[in-house]
């Protein structure tokens, strides 16, 4: 036990940088503002997220009480936490059990394998608490307070909450140890990562396809009614069947008396069994899997080549071509980089494809394509897609970060930094062009006019210039070079967030500009030309910025060799024998811009998503004297061209918006009507359809029939 605790302590210090933080902030008392700023940021973002989560839970609780299922939020919290732990824990456990660098140090030590694995599991469990506690504590508190739970509930709930991640991690651990024992995957981290990414990729596609399928089917009210009629918390067992231990944990808290005891016993037993199982397999199989029967023979790529072949392989190229080729090889030969890029390059077009071919979207797209306006919007939309694709794939925003420990090579080669950046830009444009051409090949048979695809592709490459140059400029300012796993360089790189936020702002302005031109009666060819010119100018500007920042590459610390100190800021000047930091706005931006912009983006995203969530579960309709208002929509009665009363909300499909439980908020394809905005609860009957010249809205106020009469009377009076 003592060794276990010592190991766990060391792992925690290493994982969370506790010793480094102690040394810096307590012992040397350096940069004390950093922990305070981090704490303030954490509290700020945490407060925002928590507020949204609490409001969401509150709404869900109110609904679940109405349905006589008060324990639902506890179960949902448990299920969500355990599922997240199971999926992400699997990734985490594999990397920490088999691919962490400390194994070389630990294996030769006289420590039993199950102790090493146990301490590593402990580290993962503690790390997972950072997810589990924020997800499960709020529903536990809301349920406890609103249902006036007894003392036993308050005593048991924290214990069950802390035990929650043990079971999924235990099960995932057993699966991993056995998998590694009987395969040689422990020697092939890249292969494992690719397999995991493919699994993740598969899950994304499956969830999307299933969701599209159910969206197109709509809800089946009779089925829901049957489930609800089973008495208090009857729905829990149906939902919880997907992962029974979460159900046992929840029922141990929300059921009365003996039933609770039984569920608690089941929960504790199964958790203990999973840990015992892991202990057993770890003891017998951990080292066998880790060490295998010796190193996997290294695959030779080619056999010895002769001087003639070598001459071909080493023939001279222009510098730019050599640099672009380097970019390509470094992405394509690294499975993680290749998969991350491919995932982002292929998934959005694939989802688009699924969305188009499911339901009746294909016919709609073809109808749309026949409209004269579609030439303009189709062209611009396709161009946007071509331009944004490599950005979503994180290719330009991580162009320098990807070099990581090998960045020193770029610093010592005799090639100007701006030429190196230009090569990264050219590489991004080539990717945009190739993927754009592939998308055109897929979309033309589906209804995208060939002319729109052709012009869109060329325009898309022009659009990609400023976006890519801007992204590279951001990575030039704040490259993340000290990564260990390639995922940190690409997916975990906050430069992506900053770039996406900047591009979202830019796209908003440009779409408004295009709409304005269209409204002002500009010809389609003028609008397309104007957008092309705007983007060309923006491209020139962005390249100028990128070039201006290029010399910063020489100031970055390379971590690959020698000491890895903090980034050398350009403001470091020598003044009378002592180093002094000259504070200017530029220096502050250079030093802290990344953290500030990332923080602002996260807060903005949290506000946006939170608002969407709340809007999704808040259905409030205000019927004024001459208008109806819901969410952010106000419809004056004078704008209504038709009002219909339907028996119920018709089947919906192809959602763009929120769909939580029976709540629908967003744009849907409504069977028998077309595509329009729905802000409704499926269960409330009847439903109102309000038609205006801009489109239609489906709402479900409590007294829809009365509202219908009221609106009809008012509109008739107005017409008179």
């Amino acid at each position, binding site marked *: 036990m003592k060794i276990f605790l010592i190991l766990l302590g060391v792992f925690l210090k290493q994982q969370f940088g506790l010793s480094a933080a102690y040394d810096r902030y307590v012992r040397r008392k350096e940069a004390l503002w950093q922990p305070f700023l981090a704490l303030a940021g954490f509290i700020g973002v945490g407060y925002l997220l928590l507020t949204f989560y609490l409001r969401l839970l509150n709404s869900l609780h109110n609904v679940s009480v109405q349905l006589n299922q008060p324990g639902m939020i506890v179960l949902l919290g448990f299920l969500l936490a355990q599922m997240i732990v199971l999926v992400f824990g699997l990734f985490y456990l594999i990397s920490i059990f088999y691919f962490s660098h400390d194994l070389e140090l630990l294996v030769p030590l006289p420590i039993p394998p199950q102790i090493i694995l146990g301490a590593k599991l402990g580290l993962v469990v503690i790390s997972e608490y950072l997810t589990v506690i924020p997800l499960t504590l709020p529903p536990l508190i809301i349920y406890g307070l609103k249902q006036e739970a007894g003392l036993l509930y308050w005593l048991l709930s924290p214990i069950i909450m802390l035990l929650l991640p043990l079971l999924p991690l235990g099960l995932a651990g057993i699966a991993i140890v056995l998998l590694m024992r009987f395969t040689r995957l422990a020697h092939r981290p890249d292969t494992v990562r690719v397999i995991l990414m493919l699994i993740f990729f598969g899950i994304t596609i499956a969830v999307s396809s299933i969701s599209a399928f159910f969206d197109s089917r709509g809800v089946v009210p009779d089925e829901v009614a049957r489930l609800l009629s089973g008495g208090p918390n009857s729905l829990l067992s149906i939902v919880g069947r997907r992962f029974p231990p979460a159900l046992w944990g929840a029922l141990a808290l929300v059921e009365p008396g003996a039933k609770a005891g039984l569920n608690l016993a089941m929960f504790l037993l199964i958790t203990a069994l999973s840990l015992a199982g892991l202990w057993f397999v770890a003891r017998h199989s951990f080292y066998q899997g880790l060490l295998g029967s010796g190193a996997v023979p*290294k*695959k*030779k*790529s*080619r*056999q*010895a*080549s002769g*001087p003639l*072949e*070598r*001459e071909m*392989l*080493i*023939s*001279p*190229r*222009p*510098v730019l*071509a*050599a*640099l672009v*080729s*380097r970019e390509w*090889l*470094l992405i394509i*030969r*690294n499975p993680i980089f290749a998969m991350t890029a491919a995932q982002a390059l292929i998934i959005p077009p694939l989802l688009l494809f699924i969305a188009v071919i499911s339901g009746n979207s294909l016919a709609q797209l073809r109808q749309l394509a026949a409209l004269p306006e579609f030439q303009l919007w189709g062209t611009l939309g396709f161009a946007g897609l071509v331009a944004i694709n490599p950005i979503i794939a994180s290719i330009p925003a991580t162009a320098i970060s990807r070099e990581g*420990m*090998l960045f*020193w*090579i770029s*610093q*010592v*080669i*005799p*090639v*100007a930094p701006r030429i190196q950046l230009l090569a990264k830009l050219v590489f991004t444009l080539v990717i945009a062009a190739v993927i754009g051409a592939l998308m055109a090949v897929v979309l033309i048979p589906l209804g995208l006019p060939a002319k729109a695809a052709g012009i869109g592709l060329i325009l898309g490459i022009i659009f990609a210039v400023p976006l890519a140059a801007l992204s590279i400029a951001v990575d030039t300012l704040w490259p993340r070079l000290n990564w260990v796993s390639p995922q940190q360089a690409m997916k975990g790189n906050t430069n992506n967030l900053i770039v996406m936020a900047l591009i979202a702002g830019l796209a908003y302005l440009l779409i408004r500009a295009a709409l304005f031109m269209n409204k002002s009666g500009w010809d389609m060819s003028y609008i397309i030309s104007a957008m092309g010119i705007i983007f060309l100018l923006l491209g020139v500007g962005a390249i100028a910025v990128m070039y201006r920042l290029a010399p910063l590459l*020489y*100031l970055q*610390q*390379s971590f*690959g*060799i*020698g*000491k890895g*100190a903090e980034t*050398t800021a350009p403001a*470091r000047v*020598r003044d009378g024998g*002592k*180093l002094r*930091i000259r504070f200017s706005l530029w220096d502050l931006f250079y030093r802290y811009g990344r953290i500030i912009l990332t923080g602002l983006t996260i807060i903005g995203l949290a506000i946006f998503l939170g608002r969407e969530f709340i809007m999704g579960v808040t259905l409030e309709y205000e019927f004024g004297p001459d208008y109806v208002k819901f969410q952010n929509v106000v419809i004056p009665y004078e704008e209504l061209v038709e009002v219909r009363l339907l028996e119920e909300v018709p089947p919906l499909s192809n959602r763009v918006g929120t769909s939580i439980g029976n709540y629908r908020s967003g744009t849907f394809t409504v069977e028998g009507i077309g595509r329009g905005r729905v802000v409704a609860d499926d269960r409330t009957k009847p439903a109102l359809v309000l038609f205006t010249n801009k489109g239609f809205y489906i709402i479900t106020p409590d007294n829809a029939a009365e509202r219908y009469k009221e609106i009809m009377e008012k509109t008739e009076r107005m017409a008179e």
Partner: protein
Amino acid sequence: MLQLKGVSKSYDRGKTWAVDNLNLEINSGEIFGFLGPNGAGKTTTLRTIVGLLPPDRGTIVFDGIDVWKKPLVAKRRISFLPDNPNIYDRLTGLEYVRFIADVYGVPAKERRERLERLLHIFDMAAAAPDLIKSYSHGMRQKIALIAALIPQPDLLVLDEPITGLDPRSVHLFKNLLHEHCRAGGTVFFSTHILDVAERLCDRVGIIRKGRLIACGTMEQLRRDRMADTTLETLFLELTESEAETTETETEAEAGKREREKERSREDK
């Protein structure tokens, strides 16, 4: 000629100096060995020369070119081999060498001749088309060396180049360096292997705590210490005597502080 004038570098904003006011001149055609204990400032010095680490103070000039004012002009004439051959391991050996030859603009004929020769010398012809990822540490070191030598630079800056090489490769490598210098090139390398330094270098410099504590030919160093001894003994004597001096100074300072405290107590 490589000239370092008053070069200083600090990693903690001037509290301590990794390199402290370093002045050094290395002549063209010379092999200069840079010695020092761990953490003495060798790698930092080398990195400031090749453009990886801007010095906080001082200038570095190679053949009249300030390496930090005209980095590209200087870099075209300098090759660098780091202590840990961290190179693109997902490229093949040939692809890496080709990339380096491309960016240095080595013409086709020269690159072919040099490559064949270097691959033969280091016995890497068979392994060159394989991914660097599959190489052993020594093989990585060899391919990194080949890449550093293929542009035939005027200045070769090598950080611990011998570590990881087998005895045969070390022998051939030493010959290569001599050949490079005979052709007018300069070599500046750091090493811990004093035996190699003693036999290979025209001059050596010893650095400790960022300061150059000795510099010259072996003869000059022996003459200064008035002892007919090996470089190893000289190195140990120099670094230890420096350490003792520092310790003695520290003790003297502490004693002085104590005496001052006592005096002030008595005054009170």
